[in-house]
């Protein structure tokens, strides 16, 4: 594939990686990693279902992902219910793939990722989400900090309802678009692993955000550099690179 054709996937991948990494820092602080798994899996169900029904992928994936997030937010169970929802999503994708030829192709695309084939649509969606993220950073940090306080209660007012809803909508959009561009396993690896590694190294919230970005971007660039010349699928390479970087961060923190 000529180099100039790869510029669009590269930029889309970098933008999506930065957004996912920030979302990962928030999920880490909230202790909501299982929610991310469930949400990502049901975004994939939406994508596969859209391919069967010949509907546009992004709105269906967003709708289904959003519905799952609403369900999970209504429950205090942060582990068992999200895990059950994740497993149900996995079963739904498998059944769709077993019964519809288009679904089988779409399921493979969501699992392996389609980064090299990301086009202008994905790029513009990533740019839009990136701009939205820049605007939302102060709100996101406020919501995540406030989520740490309980059971203590401050005299200061809590974040407004629109700020909580904004965080949820942004999170759904980040995970759905990230899964579409990178593939579900790579998106989840970008969500979960850089933030986990960064949590051992950072001195404060700002450090957490910066370390997470650094690890995630390093992981993306290393995976890109390795997978292209060796003609390997990008998503599994990224997962392995992120695992190694996160473990390296943990080791570095222990040796400090």
């Amino acid at each position, binding site marked *: 594939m000529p180099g100039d054709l790869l510029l669009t996937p590269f930029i889309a991948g970098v933008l999506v990686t930065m957004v996912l990494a920030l979302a990962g820092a928030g999920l880490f*602080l909230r*202790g909501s990693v299982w929610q991310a798994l469930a949400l990502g899996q049901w975004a994939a169900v939406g994508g596969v279902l859209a391919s069967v029904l010949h509907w546009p992928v992004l709105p269906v994936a967003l709708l289904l992902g959003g519905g799952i997030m609403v369900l999970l937010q209504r429950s205090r169970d942060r582990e068992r219910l999200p895990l059950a929802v994740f497993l149900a999503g996995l079963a739904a994708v498998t059944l769709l793939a077993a019964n519809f030829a288009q679904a089988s192709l779409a399921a493979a695309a969501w699992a392996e990722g389609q980064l090299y084939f990301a086009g202008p649509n994905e790029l513009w969606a990533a740019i839009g989400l990136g701009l939205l993220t820049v605007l939302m950073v102060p709100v996101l940090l406020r919501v995540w*900090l*406030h989520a*740490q*306080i309980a*059971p*203590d*209660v*401050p*005299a*200061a*007012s809590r974040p407004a309802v629109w700020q909580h809803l904004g965080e949820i909508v942004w999170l759904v959009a980040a995970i759905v678009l990230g899964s579409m561009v990178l593939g579900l396993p790579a998106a989840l690896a970008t969500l979960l692993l850089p933030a986990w590694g*960064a*949590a*051992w*190294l*950072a*001195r*404060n*919230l700002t*450090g*957490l955000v910066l370390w997470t970005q650094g690890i995630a971007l390093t992981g993306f660039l290393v995976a890109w550099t390795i997978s292209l010349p060796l003609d390997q699928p990008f998503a599994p390479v990224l997962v392995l690179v992120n695992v190694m970087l996160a473990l390296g961060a943990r080791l570095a923190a222990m040796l400090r």
Partner: protein
Amino acid sequence: MPPEPVPPILHTQSALLGFDRPVIGPLSLEIPAGARWALTGPNGVGKSLLLKAITGQARVHGGRFELAPRTHPSLLAQDHARPQPWPLSGHDWLRAMGASVPEHEGVRALLDRRLDRLSGGQWQLLRLAAVLTSRGEDSSAQRLILLDEPANHLDAEVRADAVELIKAVPAETTLLITSHDDDFLQALGLEKHPLAEYLDAG
């Protein structure tokens, strides 16, 4: 003309408090604005539950339970478990609580450190300082500070600091403390109010 009496910051009449169902009550008491009360009593009498009802974390199932208008309560809960790892600093904690940076040197020394690397006593002192200086946007609102067993986890190193911080609370602020630690309450010089005396009193 005699001055108008100051309305109480909390007035309850035959109140039933609990979570899914009533646990204590009927409870009838009046806490004057600006009071410094130590609520005492054995475990299970409902001291913590009363504080949670004030902050809205517990429910009022019956009777009257009236907090003065424009009252901003803040609560130091009995315990606050820290996740591991927890990459937040003391400054982050003050920001989360909407608290100002205290002048107390012992607290300031904790602000650049990670919360998961503080000792139990240092963590309790930082939380206490944050609750005491947490403020809402409305600067004219009445302050009600609720401290649930603030002497928990305080080792000798920070105990005197905690007493100093609590004693420095402005006079117009209402302070309600639960504690089993008589020495701590004595050091603070608070009025003791056994909660049992206000139960079944309506």
